[in-house]
């Protein structure tokens, strides 16, 4: 049977221009009922980038020197490692990623031997995206350090640490060992197809090992195409000040902004008006 010339191999979707209104992969067109080659490969590229983000190791040395320079540190950040020795173990044993290995624990105990108390310990953790940490740490911390320096109150900062194969909760052990009142964990979040570089911020007041999620506050999606570092630093600083005032963190510190109705980018408050039901 001869293919009719009037019928194209790849059928474009007449509603393709709707893709201007969402990042969802709509209006992709089709070959028969299947994805056209170009759309298939675009997806494969995004998935490859997300997988690379999960599996590429953090370049601790270059990050440490970048942070030393950007923040004007007198001592370089302290490199630490979780109990998970490699990525495969890390992915299957979240419990290992939540605690330090013995060597790192000893290092911290030595560093904290002076018994000095700190207001805040900042802990940079690879998490599920080293890319996110590599890309966003220096820009975010530059703004945060400036904010803290400009504040009327003095903020005594613990030695900056960088952790490989770590999960969020590892910050609680580090904060406790460093005698810090609060800990900020900056961690690479689970990469999405369109967001392989997303950084998460977690804050705990009075950190100690064994705390659960309900004791932490989270600011998510810090990346160039998401939440900007200036806004992220502003929000974090507000949380930190409130935590210090109330001496707590987590659900009890929750702001009420989540009772709001999200309005997205189109439409008036509470309106469901959209092109599908316009008339």
């Amino acid at each position: 049977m001869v293919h009719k010339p009037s019928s194209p191999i790849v059928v474009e979707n007449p509603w393709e221009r709707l893709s201007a209104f969402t990042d969802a992969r709509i209006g992709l067109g089709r070959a028969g009922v299947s994805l056209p080659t170009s759309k298939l490969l675009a997806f494969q590229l995004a998935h490859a980038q997300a997988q690379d983000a999960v599996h590429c190791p953090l370049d601790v040395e270059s990050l440490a020197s970048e942070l030393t320079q950007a923040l004007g540190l007198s001592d370089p950040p302290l490199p630490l490692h979780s109990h998970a020795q490699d990525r495969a173990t890390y992915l299957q044993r979240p419990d290992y990623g939540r605690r330090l290995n013995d060597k790192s624990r000893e290092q911290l105990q030595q560093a904290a031997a002076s018994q000095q108390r700190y207001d805040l310990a900042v802990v940079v953790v690879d998490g599920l995206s080293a890319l996110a940490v590599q890309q966003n740490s220096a820009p975010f911390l530059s703004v945060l350090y400036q904010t803290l320096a400009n504040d009327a109150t003095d903020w005594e900062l613990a030695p900056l640490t960088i952790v490989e194969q770590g999960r969020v909760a590892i910050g609680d052990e580090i904060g406790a060992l460093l005698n810090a009142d609060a800990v900020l964990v900056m961690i690479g979040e689970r990469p999405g197809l369109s967001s392989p570089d997303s950084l998460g911020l977690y804050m705990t007041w009075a950190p100690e090992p064994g705390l659960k999620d309900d004791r932490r506050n989270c600011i998510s999606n810090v990346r160039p195409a998401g939440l900007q570092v200036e806004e992220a630093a502003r929000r974090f600083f507000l949380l930190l000040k409130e935590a210090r005032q109330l001496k707590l963190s987590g659900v009890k510190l929750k702001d009420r902004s989540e009772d709001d109705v999200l309005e997205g980018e189109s439409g008036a408050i509470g309106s469901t008006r959209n092109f599908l039901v316009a008339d």
Partner: protein
Amino acid sequence: MAQTYHTTVGSRSYRFASLAELMAKATPPRSGDRLAGVMAETAEERVVAQMVLAELPLTTFLNEALIPYEKDEITRLIMDDHNADAFAPIRHLTVGDFRNWLLSDHATSEVLTSVRAGITPEMAAAVSKLMRNQDLILVAKKCQVTTAFRNTIGLPGRLSTRLQPNHPTDDVTGIAASILDGLLYGSGDAVIGINPATDNVAQSVKLMRLMDEVIQKYQIPTQSCVLTHVTNTLEAIEQGAPVDLVFQSIGGTEATNRSFGFDLSTLAEAEAAAQSLNRGTVGRNVMYFETGQGSSLSADAHHGLDQQTCEARAYAVARKFNPLLVNTVVGFIGPEYLFDGKEITRAGLEDHFCGKLLGVPMGCDVCYTNHAEADQNDMDNLLTLLGVAGCNFIMGIPGSDDIMLNYQTTSFHDALYARRVLGLKAAPEFERWLADMQIFQDISTHRLNDQLPAAFANSLRHLPKEPRHGA
């Protein structure tokens, strides 16, 4: 006093301290059981456990609760609702005999329906541990579970889809765009279901109204659901919101469900409230549940059970409340519970089998996260296997990419692939609508219309000229 189990293979003797341990060690390998420390230590120990399990009478599970009756309301539900008359034809069987019986020509679709109420989740889980993937497919295919609200889901030869138009900021135009894309690819007969970006009552009501308006305007024989907490939906009903289906994530232990913030009485209240709205036209199944292996371990509420047995117990919760849809979100939880494509595939087939055997209208979110060792090929395989097994429904999302939940599931295209290659159709009422709306040129060969159907061409004229956001 709980029994212990011993056996000897060659020169080695094996001891299993409890029924829970025996079940766990008989389970095909997966990372969540390793994480929980309940997995068999060697490949041999696993098969030995399966051999010991095969010899156990099914009645063992009626005499020995895996989680004590007085400690767990799911155990009480399982025991109190067990139907001895339905159980009578299989009462004499061991777990191993039960596998033979399920595969045999004695176990027709009618017979399987009639024994359902006599099968407990633990019996289903136990026999599944002895079954190969093809066994799970063959028996599940014989189990038919049909439900209805504005259309009929789960009829033989049908594969439905949940249209999942999620958006990271719940933008109404963005959501509407994904809904239209899905409808024009023939998706959405199981439900149009949104995971809200923000989980509160006001936001949920807004999204319910949005979907209700679309369904009414285009007279779509389908139902909508906002996947918010059951207590939020109850509040929405009180406010007079257009609620078709009530959603809740459920687990197989009372402690899991408490960590999710509900108990069985909450679900009973929700089912009654949604039914009182009388919004269904061809049926009264008003609940939509989601499950997934690993949720009990994740909530530290697994009582030392393996994750697949916990999962099967969740289906006892589901079947109590006559759901329209039950969805095992198999690869969402991550590699610490199901490590790779092989483990996800096995779990998907187990869940579908156990659910169907127990009479639950089982669908599957064939999915993975970017930190799992899985890719689109693994999803193609599981989708095809589940299509063969007679799975009630799968997800449909634009280009497989959920931009709100950051994971990958089956696309609108994928569903059409499965329908075409396996000769499956949409729910009958929805199929007629797709034909009437001229979304398909020829619905019998799954040939889509190259042109924009008239009703929708008109709607596109109402598009704003410029998107308000920067994308």
